[in-house]
């Protein structure tokens, strides 16, 4: 399942298929599209992260269907602790890696420069005041900052994510959020034009 709020068109998204198709070496040119290669690598890295997430999540009890806020919070923090330990030393750019970063920025700038770009930026900035916060890979998503909207026009163009992960924005930075553990898996600065 894809993630990211405001994703009203995820059922229309053929992105995964497109990425796979793009990654295939052209029969005629026998040359790999570097953009498709970067996306394929990104997807593979995401897959590995999710495998780790699932392995660690299986070690903690599932929530009851009618949980208290304390139970929800405790489970979130327990999973976060396991992931933080397993990814000790993780640094920015491990998932949004050097090949993926320019592509993602270009992609996002293209969207935000489009005819609906101003409105999309305003939509993202709603409840997203651009506070100066120090982001930390493997750190908890700031409790003071509401989750941003991720408009469908943005989401449909980003590589799809499994259910455990979501795209969010804080100010101009694209966040890769572990939605179950409430931690920042990675982030990409300068993802939204001023």
């Amino acid at each position, binding site marked *: 399942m894809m993630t990211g709020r405001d994703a009203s068109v995820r059922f229309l998204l053929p992105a995964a298929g497109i990425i796979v198709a793009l990654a295939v070496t052209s029969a005629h040119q026998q040359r790999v599209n570097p953009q498709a290669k970067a996306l394929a690598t990104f997807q593979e890295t995401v897959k590995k992260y999710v495998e780790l997430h699932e392995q660690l999540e299986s070690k903690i009890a599932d929530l009851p269907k009618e949980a208290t806020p304390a139970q929800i919070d405790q489970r979130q923090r327990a999973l976060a602790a396991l992931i933080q330990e397993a990814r000790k030393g993780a640094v920015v750019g491990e998932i949004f890696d050097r090949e993926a970063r320019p592509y993602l920025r270009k992609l996002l700038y293209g969207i935000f420069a489009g005819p609906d770009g101003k409105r999309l930026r305003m939509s993202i900035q709603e409840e997203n005041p651009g506070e100066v916060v120090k982001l930390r890979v493997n750190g908890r998503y700031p*409790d003071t900052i509401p989750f941003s909207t991720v408009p469908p026009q943005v989401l449909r163009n980003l590589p799809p994510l499994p259910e455990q992960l979501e795209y969010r924005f804080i100010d101009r930075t694209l966040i890769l959020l572990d939605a179950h553990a409430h931690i920042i898996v990675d982030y990409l600065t300068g993802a939204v034009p001023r």
Partner: protein
Amino acid sequence: MLRAVPGASVVPQAKPAAPQQAAAPAVALPNRADSFKFAVLGDFGTGDRAQYQLGEQMAKLLARFPFELVITVGDNIYGGERPQDMKKKFEDPYKPLLDAGVKFYASLGNHDDRAQSRYKLFNMEGRTFYTFKAPKEDVRFFALESDYPKPEQIAWLERELDNANEAWKIPYFHHPLYSSGDRHGSHVELREVLEPLFLKHGVTVVFTGHDHVYERIKPQNGITHFVAGSGGKLRRGGLDRKTGLTAVGFDTEQVFLGVEIDKDQLFFNAISRTGAIIDSGIIERRKEPQP
């Protein structure tokens, strides 16, 4: 379909002072003994003063109009969702309602953590989309997750609508199919998927939020859509007055809806943070199309 809705083309002008009233007298909720009564609340969990004041108005309404449940149209909690946040942004502002046994049935918005589906006071039982029968009258609700309308959910909805025998089928979710909100507006792609199902199954009213205003949309293909996205958040002057969609809009105070269903009639009052009825009316149930 709508009748007795005075001032149907009135869009109160934005002013920073007192809330504006629709031009004509309000239609009172009849408050009949055996009717089904509920409230609608959206975009509320800020923890700030305005949310609490609207909560007080809900408690005042409850004292004279014993509604049994509240449906939420998403963006239930803004920012942190730690235990202290849930208390400040939900449990305290609605304490009189919760203490009186009023149940909240939530749907999720774009700012909500999906873990809310496990929060017992939201009665979602771990589901991000679900259906339930109202305790009175011939009413069934359909809470949808419009953030994630995957094909499975759409197939589920179609199946549940097919199976529902209730006269009133009431969908509610976050993203409005029609809205004059200048921040988000109508969700056309979602509309293309959901509206045919609603039309096919005789849906009469749809409740949504997302845009931080109150708006009753002029009936669209016979269906009345409400945007109740100012339960705590408010976007002053956030209504685009040129869309032609608005029956009544209000963007200067927080608002919730009190609703009563009695047989084939739905009565509604939109009530502001200061207790003013800013919109009201009666909606007759649409009959399900014959095959």
